[in-house]
C-alpha cells in the first residue's frame, strides 16, 4: 500500500487528538463511551478499525477534532483501556504523547458495585476508588472498603 493510499484510509487531522493502540474491535465501545460525554456532542470524530500494528497485530484508532479532552473522559479511558496512547496533534504533527496507565484514584465517575454501599443510597453522593494492587488492577471503595477488579468496576458503565 502506498503512503498516498494510507492517507486516504486514515485522513490526517490538523489539530486535535488521536487515541491510538486501541485493541482491535474495542474502538466502537470507546466511541459509545464518548457519546455519554456531552462535550463531544458537536465534535468531529473518526473511528478506524483493524489497522495493522507492530505492537498489537491489529488495532483501532480514533481521531478527535477537539481542543481539549474532558478529564472525566480521560479517567474513563485510563480505567477501561490502560495501554492506549493519547496523542495531541498540532499543525498535523504529534505535539504530545501519553500512554494511559491504570489510575491510582478514580473519583466520582463510577457507581460502586456493592448494592449495600452508602454511595448507592445517599442522594447526590459520589464515589472514590483507590488502586490497591496494580498487578491485578484491584480497587478499593473508599466508603464500603470492598475490593473490586477493574472489570467489575467498569461493568457498572454498561458499555
Amino acid at each position, binding site marked *: 500500500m502506498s503512503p498516498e493510499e494510507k492517507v486516504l484510509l486514515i485522513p490526517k487531522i490538523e489539530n486535535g487528538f488521536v487515541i491510538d493502540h486501541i485493541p482491535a474491535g474495542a474502538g466502537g465501545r470507546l466511541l459509545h463511551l464518548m457519546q455519554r460525554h456531552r462535550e463531544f456532542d458537536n465534535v468531529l470524530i473518526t473511528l478506524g478499525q483493524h489497522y495493522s500494528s507492530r505492537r498489537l497485530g491489529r488495532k483501532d484508532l480514533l481521531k478527535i477534532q477537539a481542543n481539549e479532552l474532558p478529564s472525566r473522559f480521560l479517567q474513563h479511558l485510563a480505567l477501561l483501556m490502560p495501554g492506549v496512547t493519547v496523542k495531541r496533534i498540532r499543525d498535523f504533527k504529534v505535539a504530545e504523547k501519553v500512554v494511559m496507565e491504570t489510575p491510582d484514584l478514580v473519583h466520582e465517575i463510577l457507581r460502586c458495585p456493592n448494592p449495600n*454501599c452508602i454511595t448507592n443510597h*445517599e*442522594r447526590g453522593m459520589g464515589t472514590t476508588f483507590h488502586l490497591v494492587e496494580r498487578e491485578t488492577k*484491584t480497587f478499593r471503595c473508599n*466508603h464500603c472498603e470492598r475490593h473490586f477488579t477493574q472489570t467489575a468496576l467498569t461493568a457498572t458503565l454498561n458499555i
Partner: protein
Amino acid sequence: MKRDLISIEDLSLRKILEFLDLARRIEGMPLAERAHLLDGRLLGVLFFEPSTRTRLSFEAAMLRLGGRTIGFSEVASTSVAKGESLSDTIRTVEQYCDAIVIRHPREGAARLAAEVSRLPVINAGDGANQHPTQTLLDLYTLQHLFGRIDGLRIALVGDLKYSRTVHSLVHALAKFSGIEFVLVSPESLRLPEYVKAVPEGRLQARETTDLNEAIATCDAIYMTRIQRERFPDPLEYEKVKDSYLLDRAALRRAKPHLKVLHPLPRVNEIAPDVDATPHAAYFPQVGYGLIMRQAILASLLGGMS
C-alpha cells in the same frame, strides 16, 4: 484537627498501641477521678439498626466517665423514616452534641458521617464492613489475658467468610509480630483470599476444619456465631450452622492457659458448661470492652491525651 474512628484499616500499629495504653491507664485510674473525665460532654448515639449490647456499652462508657448521651436506637420514630438523608441527620445532630457514635446497616455510612461532620465520629458497625471498637476491645482482652499480643497462637473459628469481626481482627493482629493463626471453618466459610492479603504480607496461617487441633495447640480461641442473616441461601446456612460446638469435654485437651473469646451473642457454638471453666474469657471480654470504649471516647473527646 478532629479525629474519627471509622475503620481498623486506618490505624497504624502505633495508634493501636496508644489506644491499648490509654485503656490500661483508665482501668488503673481511681474511680472518683475516672468518673469526671468527660464531665459536661454530650455524646450522640445514633443507631439506625438495633444493637442493644453495643449501644449499652457505649452509653455506659460515656455515663461512667461523667458525660451524657442522647440518641435513638431505631429509625421508625426519626426523620430518617420520612426520607431524610444521612448527611442531613448528621448535620442536625451535630448541633446538639460533642461527638457521634453511629451504627448503620449500609456499608460506608460511618465514613460518610465523618466526612460531613465537624465532630469526632465513631463507627459502631456499618453493615458487613467495619466494627473497629470491637477489634480494639478484642486486642485489649488478649493483652490483658496474656500480658502481650506478639507471638500468640490464635485460632479463629466458625464463619470466617462473612464475619466482619474476624476480618478486622485478622488485619489488626497482622500488624503485631509473630502471630500464628489457625483458621478453623467449614470449607464453604473459609477466610477470603483478599482478607489474607494483609498489607504486611502473607499471614502465617494454617487452615483446617478440625477444631480439636486448635484446642490442643493454641493460646486463644476466638469463636464466632455463624450468622443466618449473612447467607444468601438458607440451605447453605442449614448445612453449616452447627459445625462447631465447643464444650467442656472438648477442652480437656487444651493447654491450661487457653482462653476462649467470643464477640457475643453466642447461640450454640459454646456450651454453657464452658462458662465455669478457667478457659472462659468471653464475659470478662465484655468488661474490657467497656474500658476500651471509655478510652476511645476519652481520646476523641479530649478527656485524655
